[in-house]
């Protein structure tokens, strides 16, 4: 039993955290959000630090890492509220690594590792909510037709992994982003998204079905858990600092027991959430079978969704009016945690799956 990162994981987490402290403070982030919504310079630095190649197999110039290798990175991203669409590239690259032909892997993955290519994963459809099996996009004779709304990172992606009904049921296909009509928008937490429309878009088949989609969503959920834990950490620390400095009735408001007990509960929630993120990431890498993996990820996502709601809401409440203000990072953390609570399945969806396993 051991809850430590290994030396490499720790070094990586530390260097990401250092970089975030230096180049991704709240003011820098504001500029990125006000501009294009991502920074090519930041992305190049991700590549430089090896982040874009973390899940890419060694044969294609990556590190062949798993969820635990990414955990510290995601926590640091969560604290800094990174808006660059890192997770979509990770998930799509993993799918290519697992289900791509040798030629496909060679064509895509080294470029991903080097930061030259960005990917997106287009699966969910309108009305499907969190039901992974609900797919209407179709594939026939090398072409894809259908609608994929709210694809995170799609506005700047080069290639998209798209799910569609093909001759053998639901499969995954590689499509050039340029072959889709894209309507870009920003999510509630200021990330880049696009509604993609495919009309006879040329597509290459990957050797993957719904089970691999489910695995990819579990991987995404595990990363969302780790990212949320980082965001929760910031929300707790910022709120604690506020309780110590904000004065009313002549004293810091942190001297009031009614508020002390509430912030204590937030720290407890954060510890419990962190424990479940550890569980999700380690079972993602080490589970004996899909059932064990799914059980761990669902239980973690339920806890993280509940904790994200509670911590985000309470951190704003305890900041008073300032918590509502766009000026403070805590309100942006609120937005991020709100999104993370439902990304890759909300609590109710995972409660249903947890009970069925």
């Amino acid at each position, binding site marked *: 039993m051991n809850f430590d990162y290994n030396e490499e994981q720790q070094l990586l987490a530390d260097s990401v955290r250092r970089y975030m402290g230096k180049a991704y403070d709240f003011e820098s982030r504001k500029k990125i959000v006000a501009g294009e919504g991502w920074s090519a310079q930041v992305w190049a630095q991700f590549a430089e630090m090896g982040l874009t190649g973390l899940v890419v197999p060694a044969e294609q110039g990556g590190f062949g890492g798993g969820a635990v290798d990414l955990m510290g990175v995601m926590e640091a991203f969560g604290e800094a509220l990174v808006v660059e669409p890192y997770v979509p590239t990770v998930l799509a690259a993993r799918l290519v690594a697992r289900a791509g032909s040798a030629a496909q892997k060679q064509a895509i993955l080294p470029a991903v590792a080097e930061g030259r290519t960005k990917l997106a994963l287009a699966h969910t459809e309108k009305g499907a909510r969190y039901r992974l099996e609900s797919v209407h996009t179709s594939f026939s004779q090398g072409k894809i037709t259908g609608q994929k709304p709210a694809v995170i990172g799609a506005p700047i992606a080069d290639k998209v992994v798209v799910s569609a009904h093909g001759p053998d049921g639901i499969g995954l296909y590689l499509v050039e982003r340029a072959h889709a009509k894209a309507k870009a928008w920003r999510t509630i937490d200021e990330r880049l998204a696009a509604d993609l429309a495919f009309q006879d878009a040329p597509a290459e088949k990957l050797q993957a079905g719904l089970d691999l989609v489910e695995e990819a969503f579990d991987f995404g959920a595990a990363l969302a858990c780790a990212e949320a834990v980082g965001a929760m950490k910031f929300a707790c620390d910022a709120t604690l600092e506020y309780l110590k400095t904000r004065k009313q009735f002549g004293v810091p408001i942190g001297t009031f027991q009614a508020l002390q007990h509430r912030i204590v509960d937030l720290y407890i929630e954060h510890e419990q959430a962190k424990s479940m993120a*550890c569980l999700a990431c380690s079972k993602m890498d080490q589970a004996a079978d899909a059932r064990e993996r799914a059980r761990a990820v669902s239980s973690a996502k339920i806890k993280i969704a509940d904790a994200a709601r509670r911590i985000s809401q309470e951190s704003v409440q305890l900041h008073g009016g300032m918590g509502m203000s766009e000026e403070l990072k805590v309100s942006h953390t609120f937005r991020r945690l709100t999104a993370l609570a439902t990304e890759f399945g909300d609590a109710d969806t995972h409660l249903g799956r947890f009970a069925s396993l």
Partner: protein
Amino acid sequence: MDLNYSAEELAFRDEVRAWLRANLPADLREKGERYAHLSRDDLLRWHKILARQGWVAPAWPKEWGGTGWNVVQRYIFEEELGFAGAPPLIPFGLTMCAPVLLRFGTEAQKKRFLPRIYHGEDFWCQGYSEPGSGSDLASLKTKALRQGDHYVVNGQKIWTTLGHYADWIFCLVRTDPGVAKRQEGISFLLIDMKTPGITVRPLILMDGAHEVNEVFFDEVKVPAENLVHEEGKGWTVAKYLLGYERMNTGRIGESKRQLARLKEYAAHMKEDVRFRDRLSRLEIELTALEITNLRFLDRMRRTGQPPGADVSMLKIKGTEIQQGLTELMMEATDPAASDELAQAIRKRYLNMRKTTIYAGSNEIQRNIIAKMTLGL
């Protein structure tokens, strides 16, 4: 990161499990399953079985009977006891009085009391709370005035758990009513329950059970050699005890067993989504607490630092989960059922409300975290 036990840890767990299977008396286990009352003899019988095996006080130093297990082994052992449905080990002697004696006691006190605690020859209870002193413990009023080689004790303790079984009581008493800082007038005193002037009166809880008592002291003469640490240093002793390694605070093994029991018992509610989701959330909270507890242990093992305010968090979460389990168990019971088990389950719900109040109420635990961990 590896959340699984190592091969050695698993082998240790299996050894403990096999031993428990062979040595936990069926009638005691069965009483636990029925949520039946455990007598003084029941508790001591189990204590003595563990003592004979050399496992009754794993955390003690080896020279006094400790096992030399590391923190993870101790955790595994405690969780296995809970999971097997073993009767509880009463903490007042083993994990409260003994650590105090080991830290502050004289050689003579250690030799006199520790072996008897180990072998279950003395049954101990705790004399802290008073009618006017609950969470505000330092306001306690029971007086112990020095007269020659004795203290004369007058006053009253309350909520004395199993005081009616006890041979000895360790008490916080006021030896100097004159000092300005009230914590400084307090001392830690060991008192033989057979001493003339002590009266034990039952306090019946809402489930009808007799667990706790009022203890009255009327001109009780206590030899001065029963003072632990210096006169006026009782608060230091009490604080040490609060921070003492209590790794079973979360009672996770016991809760896991109750959860398994609940799932079996509530099998007929499987299709009730509202009930099902509440049960799932409780199960997940317990999983999280188990990992949190292991994370704290792991950190302790690496840094050698005592757990500090972490214990408060385990107490808060652990007791909330225990109460949640008894609540769902009661709700899963057929409202029309009046059999013995159904009634025991309802009474258990009543009884377990104590857990968030005793051993430092959960509100006091939050105060501790606010002050010690968060610096508020």
